[in-house]
């Protein structure tokens, strides 16, 4: 087990290097001069040269990459020119907000998705199954940015039950309860799509497993039906569900961009969108890198869980 984790950690190194390379290259290959973008078209040639030197733009690409990587490994992600503060500080602050939102959404969608999927499989073609299947279809077809608007219109504008924006009330508040009230709408919006996908897959996977020969063996042994469903079928289906949960975590983390924009959630997604439109390259680089790296780590966890569940991959 330990050696498996060690091997997986080792395998992370090339992925992280690749990630950093992609992020760096994409930004380096942006047409146009970042220095010019920062200083504007009225900048003097001297100040442009100075800024270019400051940003390391006068080196060759590989050297630029190495300098950049070295800085990042030392925790120096550069300075955001639009916010005029260290990129890392901004990213960490924003990422915390995103994590709160997406972790809640992910927990919601995993629980709902798996539960709905199992119930549908067990009651295949019953009314519960039909209803959930219809809901799932709506869930995976609905644009989350539209769903968010509708929820705001209904619960915030019409009913005044829940706040429409922000993470904490502007005046006062700031406690956990306040956070929870602000979380309800965005987390629900964010979880809908992933819950649909997970429910679908769980249902299909359960149905597939229930047809297997070893389920017939369990029934031939006289095992109680509840045990057949949960101990035998669900356990086997879980092996197929875990990797999908990993992928869905990525959807939730990425989908946070829309939800944060709609609900004015001070997360990293909204920061990135702003940074892209203001061409704050260092901020984009830093943000993307941190989110991607954390996602890679999350996938590692999913892998380890998978490994624990399935003895066949263990050998």
């Amino acid at each position: 087990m330990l050696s498996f984790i060690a091997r997986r950690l080792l395998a992370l190194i090339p992925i992280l290097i690749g990630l950093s390379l992609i992020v760096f290259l994409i930004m380096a290959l942006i047409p146009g001069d970042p220095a010019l973008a920062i200083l504007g078209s009225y900048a003097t040639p001297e100040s442009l040269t100075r800024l270019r030197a400051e940003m390391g733009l006068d080196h060759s690409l590989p050297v630029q990459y190495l300098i950049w990587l070295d800085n990042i490994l030392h925790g120096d992600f550069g300075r955001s020119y639009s916010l005029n503060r260290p990129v890392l500080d901004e990213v960490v602050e924003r990422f915390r907000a995103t994590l709160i939102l997406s972790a809640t959404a992910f927990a919601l969608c995993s629980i709902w998705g798996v539960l709905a999927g199992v119930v549908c499989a067990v009651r295949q073609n019953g009314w519960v199954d039909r209803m959930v299947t219809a809901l799932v279809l709506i869930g995976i077809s609905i644009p989350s940015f539209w769903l968010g608007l509708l929820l705001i219109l209904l619960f915030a504008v019409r009913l005044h039950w829940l706040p429409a924006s922000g993470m904490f009330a502007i005046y006062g508040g700031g406690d956990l309860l306040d956070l929870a009230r602000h979380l309800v709408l965005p987390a629900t919006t964010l979880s809908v799509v992933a819950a649909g996908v997970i429910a679908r897959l769980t249902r299909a996977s359960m149905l597939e497993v229930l047809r297997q020969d070893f389920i017939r063996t369990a029934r031939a042994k006289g095992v109680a039906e509840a045990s057949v469903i949960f101990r035998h079928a669900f356990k086997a289906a879980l092996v197929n569900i875990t990797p999908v949960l990993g992928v869905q975590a990525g959807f939730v983390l990425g989908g946070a961009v829309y939800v944060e924009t709609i609900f004015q959630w001070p997360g990293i997604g909204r920061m990135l969108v702003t940074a892209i439109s203001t061409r704050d390259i260092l901020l984009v680089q830093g943000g993307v890198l941190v989110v991607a790296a954390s996602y890679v780590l999350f996938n590692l966890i999913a892998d380890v869980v998978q490994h624990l569940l399935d003895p066949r991959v263990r050998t």
Partner: protein
Amino acid sequence: MNGRLSRLPGSAPRRAAAKAALSVLARNRPAAVGAIILALIVVIALLTPVLPLLPPDAIDPANRLIPPLNAGRTLGTDQLGRDMLARLLWGARLSLAVGLAATFVAALAGSSIGVCAGYFGRWIDALLMRAIDMLMAFPYVLLALTIVAALGPGLFNAMIAVAVVNIPFFARNLRGSTLGIVHREFIDAARLSGKGDFSILVSEVLPNVAPVIVITMSTTVGWMILETAGLSFLGLGSQPPQADLGSMLGEGRKLLLNAPFVSTIPGAVIFLLVIGVNLVGDGIRDALDPRLRSGAIARPSPVTAISRGRAAVDAGHSQGVLQVRTLSTEFQTAGETYKAVNSVSFAIRNGECLGLVGESGSGKSVTALSLLALVQSPPGTITEGAVLLDGEDVLSKSAAALRFIRGGRASYVFQDPQSTLHPLLTIGEQVAEALRAHQPVSRVKAWDKAVRLLDLVRIPNAKRRAHAFPHELSGGMRQRVGIAMALANHPEVLIADEPTTALDVTVQAQVLKLMNELRMRDSAAVLFITHDFGVASDICDRIAVMYAGQIVEMGAAEDVLERPAHPYTRRLIDCVPALGSGIRSFRAIGGAPPAANRLPSGCAFADRCDFAVAECRARPVGFVAVASNHLARCLHPLEARGERTSA
């Protein structure tokens, strides 16, 4: 068993298969609804340029934010006084086009990568898939954002970004299905026929993975429409004045409180479009997935459906611990009825072993599964008969009562120990579970007993091996576990369904020996199903031969094997020359058994029989006693004609 059942209806001709796929699509009501929605949107999108609409970009500040159904504006106007209806139709047209374009780009690039990786393998596979892993390492939308950040905002760039993000789905799916095909023998056959790599890829691999491409497209196109709209919503896709549905929503969002219709209406159109696409996509997936087509994905119920027309047979005097009377089981699929078991009757006494011998499709396995209602329903139904265990009809019992009989008084050993053991539970747990399902013992006690049972079936080092998972054991060892499970509760009846067919001969001999010893020890009644007369001869006291769902001959093992009365038994035995006999020729039986959905009214073997006369085909043939306790379903049994052996 499963494979054979699901193949029953699959033998339709190919053109009919295509037609079946279409009819599945047509019968699928949700898909039909989706198709109508989608067709409507597509037609309107195509007609938009010729429809009498106001210009979508004409600014008219005087008529700002007119609500829908006012002043001749069907859907009102937006913040710049532009006609919403016109903008909506042009926007839908754009969103649809961009979504489809992204899908095609992703499908082309992703499928090429996946097929090449799967086909060539080795370093090409490693290289391509590491690159794909890299793309997958970014959370979905984030990668699209990054690409747009690099290329700059714009609809074309957004399309490229969304396509790139979806490449991994195609690459992974196609790699998987290509891998499944590359090792098939027909690829080797093509190579032996002189084909090169390119030709094999194009004409052997591609046609077989094409459905996967279509399925992946149909499941991702909805996503891609949503994602391009999403990027536009964030202001990174279409740039003003050009507007797709997403950017309309994004711009209108600022007016949510005063004029919600400006943003909600485009959102509703996106939703409608995507739901239409997804409904059709699901329909396509269902139609192309052969497993769904045959209805095999349906969850089998724990107990076979039983609909016996006749009242249950009276529990008359018992001829044995297990008595089966006129048992019939059918499979209903696609409007066809397959009579797998057709009025089968037999009885087994304590300590006796009855061999049920027949070729594939003869109904022997379905008979075995019907005894404790383990046939999958749907599509199976027990239509007639009774299974008497100590004189009590098993098939009349409730599901709960049946559960206590299964694995308790009657238990099974199945054919393929690879698939019949749970892959994620240790063998000790699986044996202990069989005990705990029937005996009130503690977990620890059950485990101890399980280890003793594993020892009994001669699994070396049982104490340690009890912690092993099935995949860690050889086939022979796994089958021993199956036997241990079956014997856990000292059953009165043991039903063994081809327990040694998947094993090598030397292992088979050992397992047979073990089974023989243990059944003697427990003096259990055994129903032993096999296709091999040699195996039956080794272990069985009596033999029943099945053909086309019926028992055609039954009697003591040596009588049936040495003096077969039914021509089918005779010919089947002669098909395999006895080992060591030095015979160097075969006497094959011409023709094939009748299909289970088109059984003749007379003798099912008549068409392949040398002695058939008109009378044989006229009406069902009953049993004739050729000797004491030796029955044959034949009007002209061999013995009676004085024809002994013909070989």
